[in-house]
């Protein structure tokens, strides 16, 4: 049996979600999600705003407590009571729509904070690792800058690097280009493309349909808290079987966000 990374058999999915339910008060946001992502797989979540994409990602990261269901990461169940959420979150990186960089810290400190405090990496080692990552993503000259001196695209690339510095098994990307000016979207998507090429397991909530079509191994269409349809991008975008998926894609095409 082939093993990768932390000695976990390759056949164990990176994430497996069964029967996930989540409500905010009376509002049912997730109504029975079943989803499995294999190692080195890139899965894109598409769907209208409010369909539950972001909530699903936040549940996987345990930023939101779930009401029912099971989530396993690399075979370990993380949704049962008594698990150490801090240990689990180290293995799962998440990048947010609004970057959420720490504004009182320089770029390098943003990236090294978690390795230093959580992994207890010695400061000079954390710094050299961070420099290597920042250099790889074209941010070598921004290390000493503070976030408010960077463009949105640069900030989002720093946020991706900050997540990568923890060497996560899995990266969750929550509409990471939605807050960017259009001309800055490409540089951020370029980073994600490179990560996909490098084999990073990713679960991506996105409104960038062209990007999803290019990068995803699989696309899931979320509607009202359920995965209504999933499959390879060519099929979902060309021949969706569900009427709701077709409607959604027609609206996206009408808005000029996807070529027909």
């Amino acid at each position, binding site marked *: 049996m082939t093993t990768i990374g932390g000695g976990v058999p390759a056949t164990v999915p990176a994430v497996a979600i069964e029967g996930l339910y989540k409500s905010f008060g009376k509002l049912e946001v997730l109504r029975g999600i079943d989803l499995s992502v294999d190692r080195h797989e890139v899965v894109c979540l598409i769907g209208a705003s409010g369909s539950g994409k972001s909530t699903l990602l936040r549940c996987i990261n345990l930023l939101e407590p779930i009401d029912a269901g099971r989530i396993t990461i690399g075979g370990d169940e993380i949704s049962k009571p008594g698990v150490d959420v801090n240990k689990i979150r*180290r293995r799962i990186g998440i990048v947010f729509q609004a970057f959420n960089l*720490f*504004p*009182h810290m320089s770029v390098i400190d943003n990236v090294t904070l978690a390795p230093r405090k959580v992994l207890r990496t010695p400061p000079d080692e954390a710094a050299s690792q961070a420099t290597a990552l920042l250099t790889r993503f074209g941010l070598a000259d921004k290390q000493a800058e503070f976030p*408010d001196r960077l463009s949105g*695209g640069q900030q989002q*690339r720093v946020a991706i690097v900050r*997540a990568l510095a923890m060497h996560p098994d899995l990266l969750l990307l929550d509409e990471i280009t939605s807050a960017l000016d259009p001309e800055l979207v490409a540089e951020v998507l370029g980073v994600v493309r490179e990560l996909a090429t490098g084999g990073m397991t990713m679960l991506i909530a996105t409104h960038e349909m062209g990007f999803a079509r290019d990068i995803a191994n699989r696309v899931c269409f979320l509607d009202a808290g359920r995965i209504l349809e999933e499959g390879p991008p060519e099929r979902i975008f060309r021949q969706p079987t569900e009427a709701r998926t077709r409607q959604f894609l027609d609206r996206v095409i009408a808005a000029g966000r996807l070529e027909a």
Partner: protein
Amino acid sequence: MAGLLSGPGDSGDLIGVRGPSGPRLVHERRSAVRSTAVAAISTVVFLAVITLIVVNSPGWSAVQRSFFDGEVFAESWPVIVKAFWINVQLFLVSEVLILTLGLVVAVLRSVPGPVLFPVRALATIYADVFRALPGLLVIYILGFGIPALGLAGVPVDPFLYAVLALTLIYSAYVSEVYRAGIDSVHPSQEAAARSLGLTRFQALRHVILPQAVRRVVPPLLNDFIGLQKDTVLVSYIGVVEIFRQSQIRSAATFNFTPYLVTALVFLVVTIPLARLTDVLIARDRRRGAASAR
């Protein structure tokens, strides 16, 4: 990757606004000089008129005798300024304790979970009670009440009770200031920190508090201007500080000039602090405008 590596250019040139140049600059400089001159002349004339009116008004000589006696001023100011050293000590020791206790109370008020409800409740009750009570009452109760119990090992030095009372009173206010600062940091900052695996405490320590404290420096300085002035209240429990000393000097000379000395000392100390607060608030406002997106 090439397009990716060369992100957008530095935005510095967007921020740097160029000033006027050439004839317009000369004109602006001239009019600036002119308005400064006009303001100076107008101020001098204004002050001269006020002084003339005051000095020539009936009763001025009585006021002068009572409040502006040169001889009393000369002999009382060294004693009074020396007594102010007690206020400075009170202020400095209390300030350190207040900044610490206020922060602890603010943090305890936001600890999560049902088990820690009593801790939250206690911190809330403390802040409510000590903001509700008049400061002088607290100083009396502690400064006279505790030594009067006559318990073994209880200190009698009024300075200690003064520090204790001021710390308890002001920490309640300061905990509210800190709490406002903590609340002003957007929850997404904590989410970002926790998502990287930081514990709740690490997120508070490294992400939330540094941002919160920076934002509340001006209101904290305001509270400390108040504290400086309130140090005179402890004269009531027998601390011979600046106000008590000026009372003693006033009684000895049958003259109010010692109080004027005390007033001048407070003006000299607190007005620069008030100006500093204004400068910090203005700086924060500029920064806020620059980083708003």
